[in-house]
């Protein structure tokens, strides 16, 4: 596939030969300019998985924001504690995994940016859940505002 054409408008050149093509901020493919038919498959696999992790976290954040808008703090207080505790465990585990990705030398800047954004959303979800468990309305509002801002980033 030729790296030229309309895609080139949204492409970023990395180094002297490597071209990375984006669509709406999502990486689509990486092409070696010297050999355009050869896709760097492992790099694409990494990009796809990073995009998938980010998309799942964004979806979960969006649902939590939707809960807040529909039911508010008082409506959400009825969520059983075991559900919140299980969610918090999973969120913390994913945060720890993302920490290792952010420091990984094989991850490009764009993937690191997505991982950092996902981690910030998870941190805010963590704070929302903690505020709900503690019954702290003020902290809940602060965390929800931060989550909305971060998810829109």
């Amino acid at each position: 596939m030729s790296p030229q054409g309309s895609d080139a408008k949204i492409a970023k050149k990395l180094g002297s030969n490597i071209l990375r093509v984006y669509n709406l901020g999502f990486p689509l493919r990486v092409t070696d300019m010297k050999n355009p038919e050869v896709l760097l498959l492992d790099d694409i696999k990494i990009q796809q998985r990073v995009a998938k992790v980010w998309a799942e976290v964004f979806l979960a954040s969006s649902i939590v924001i939707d809960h807040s808008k529909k039911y508010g703090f008082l409506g959400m207080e009825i969520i059983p504690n075991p559900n919140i505790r299980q969610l918090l465990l999973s969120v913390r585990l994913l945060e720890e995994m993302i920490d290792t990705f952010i420091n990984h030398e094989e991850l490009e800047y764009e993937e690191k940016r997505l991982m950092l954004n996902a981690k910030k959303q998870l941190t805010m979800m963590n704070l929302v859940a903690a505020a709900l468990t503690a019954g702290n309305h003020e902290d809940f509002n602060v965390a929800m505002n931060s989550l909305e801002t971060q998810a829109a980033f």
Partner: protein
Amino acid sequence: MKPITNNSETLKLDAKRDLIARLDQAVILAADITRQVQGITEILETHHKVALAA
């Protein structure tokens, strides 16, 4: 595909494969978080319906 002849290239390839495997686990965990949040949606919706009906 070009054969891997350089040791540093092999190490780089191994590092990428290891990263892909760990990203696969992260994808599964992230999807599980989404499922848990969707489960909370059902709890909230059910509670809201019951509250409205009462």
